[in-house]
């Protein structure tokens, strides 16, 4: 590589301008309901799957009122900690675990996914990545739902170990035991206010 080319590469990779043309976010608005939800979106596995879990909760605003027009997306590894790379993530053939789900909240602000508990890949604590879109949310919010059973792995998790206990607890599902034949985990999302959920920024 010539010196000039090396300089060109250095300029290209260090200049903050590589962010300059990024398209900004805009709110999802209230009227996505006939467009984004898809058949089987909240059901990553069928409810009769022997190891199906219920992953659910309520999304609330700064007044504690339910957010009835939020759209949540989840993305997670399978039971062995592997992320699907297969095409067809919004197909629901009843057998393939794609790891991607989408669910609109109800008029009570509730959401429910039927999925599998993600497994650990190596020593990293498993979690479900949760993305929150809603009217009034100008830029989507990322958070992670961890599981209390994996507490041995939480001590070394970069996010959990950096947070004070009360903040950390907003990222850990409440285990509800077997409800309606499936292990149930509650993950409430408080966008603002008391016990506000920890939201994450992955930008470099």
């Amino acid at each position, binding site marked *: 590589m010539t010196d000039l080319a090396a300089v060109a590469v250095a300029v290209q990779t260090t200049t903050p301008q590589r962010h300059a043309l990024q398209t900004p976010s805009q709110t999802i608005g209230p009227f996505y309901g006939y467009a984004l939800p898809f058949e089987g979106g909240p059901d990553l596995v069928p409810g009769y799957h022997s190891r199906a879990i219920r992953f659910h909760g309520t999304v609330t605003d700064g007044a504690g009122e339910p957010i009835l027009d939020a759209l949540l997306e989840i993305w*997670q590894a399978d039971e062995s900690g592997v992320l699907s790379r297969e095409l067809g993530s919004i197909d629901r053939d009843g057998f393939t675990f794609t790891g991607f789900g989408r669910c609109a909240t109800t008029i009570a602000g509730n959401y429910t996914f039927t999925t599998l508990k993600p497994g650990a890949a190596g020593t990293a604590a498993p979690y479900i*990545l949760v993305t929150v879109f809603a009217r009034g949310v100008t830029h989507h919010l990322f958070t992670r739902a961890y599981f209390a059973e994996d507490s041995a792995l939480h001590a070394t998790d970069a996010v959990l170990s950096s947070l004070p206990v009360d903040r950390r607890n907003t990222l850990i599902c409440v285990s509800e035991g077997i409800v309606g034949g499936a292990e149930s985990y509650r993950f409430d999302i408080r966008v603002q206010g008391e016990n506000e959920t920890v939201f994450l920024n992955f930008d470099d």
Partner: protein
Amino acid sequence: MTQTSPRAGTGAASQDDITAEIEAIEADAAARVAAGGSPERQPRRDYAPYRSSVLRHPTHELVRVDPEEVERVSPAFGHTDVNSLESDLTIQHSGEPIGERITVGGRVLDGEGRPVRHQLIELWQANAGGRYVHKRDQHPAPLDPNFTGVGRAITGENGEYSFTTIKPGPYPWKNHVNAWRPAHIHFSLFGTAFTQRLITQMYFPGDPLFALDPIYQSIASADARARLVGQYDHSLSVPEFSLGYTWDIVLTGPKSTWMESEEAHD
């Protein structure tokens, strides 16, 4: 012309109140830039002129974290998910929709300007009269039995996409008295990493409602929000059929892929 009184649930502020708030925030953002700060290229999460944001933004700062593998990859989509006919919003019913037929095309790129190939792109919009096919949309404009306003596609080898649709109309909303949204199309995008996920809106050039709209204005940098405006492109216009607009969408990073490709060039 008779004027109907504002409907229940409408915010009490006037457009002048909202405009003054928008201008005050823009001046504040400009002062921060003048003092050496970065331009605000994303919308403020706490943007009071957009009333719905007041109780729907976190008050804690977001926690900065390096993405793990879950965030560094993305769901994969393909033509098993999406039929190629879904990119034409004008053929979903037995008749032709009412309105100005348009072709909207462009490319989806990552933060390094590389194409985002074979990824899902979804859009939704109001009809030519400014009405959504959504049960909570109460705007008394007519529904069009021949227009749903939903499209999907998978980007091509060069990140390209193209939709055939109808130019959406502006519509009133309840943020404040006499509030109107500029005409726009909602877009949903995935990159190769989940961190690149984006939902945004494309606008049309020269819209007189831009200065008045607290959603468009929630991005304090004028340069950044101008990137939401598609441009008329005569080369995309189809003779005797549709007018063309071009709009490229640039996602963030991803950092990991970017480092990988750097090695590949050595």
